[in-house]
């Protein structure tokens, strides 16, 4: 008996925001993992093709905004024959629920993956209350 194998390719989602973009290009939502420990919030985003210098991370009023731009000039002279994904810039923002120590935010990029470590502010860390 034969079974057909289907190939799953992760679909890229286009950014749907209330604010309109002025740049004449499409933006996509990067696939993101977010996890939290007692000390920090870690955000891991997949932004293939984005170089370190083209990344912009902002934290303002508990809103974390990340934007990454890809360099289209690398595709110059290439004629598309077949396509499974579209190339675009990346943008995403999150409203953070816990207070972050903005001065100690660390960012690293490796193989097209951005890792942001957002340490929690001292007053936002959970405290264990001893029961007397």
């Amino acid at each position: 008996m034969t079974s057909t194998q289907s190939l799953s390719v992760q679909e890229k989602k286009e950014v749907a925001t209330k604010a309109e973009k002025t740049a004449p290009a499409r933006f996509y939502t990067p696939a993101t993992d977010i996890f939290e420990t007692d000390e920090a919030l870690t955000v891991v985003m997949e932004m293939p093709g984005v170089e370190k210098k083209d990344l912009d991370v902002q934290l303002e009023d508990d809103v974390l905004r990340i934007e990454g731009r890809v360099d289209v000039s690398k595709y110059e002279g290439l004629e598309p024959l077949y396509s499974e994904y579209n190339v675009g810039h990346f943008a995403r923002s999150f409203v953070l629920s816990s207070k972050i120590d903005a001065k100690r935010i660390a960012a690293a990029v490796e193989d097209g993956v951005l890792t942001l470590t957002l340490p929690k502010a001292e007053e936002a860390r959970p405290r264990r209350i001893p029961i007397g």
Partner: protein
Amino acid sequence: MALFYSNPFDAMLEFQRALDTLRDSAWLDFSPSGRGAFPPLNVFSKGDDIVVIAEAPGVHKADLRIEAKGNTIRISGVKSIERGARASVHRRERADGRFDRTVTLPVEVDADRVKAEYRDGILALYLPRAESAKPRTINIT
């Protein structure tokens, strides 16, 4: 329709539109075989040659394997995500695992001259068309 950008501001949108028109193309429909969460790929032509570009963020260079023979190329590898001890997970959208895919190209490629580059999560394969597959111009006498 080759892409030459005169206006850098419109370049990205023009390029995206050009790719969009191909999203429904059935060119590789029956030829690929594979399994797993495969990085999506785009195929371009550049002069006589073929360029295959795939988005594979988070895959280590050492975990990628490329094979070329005749008119097929095989791309396989593994994407591993280290998930350490976590207090709580808010979002988990990134996919990991093994992938393996063979793509049949419309032309024979010169396997010895295939070049592969991996930078910033993008895999680019430069596949020169084999001499035997290049068209010859016939002079009319």
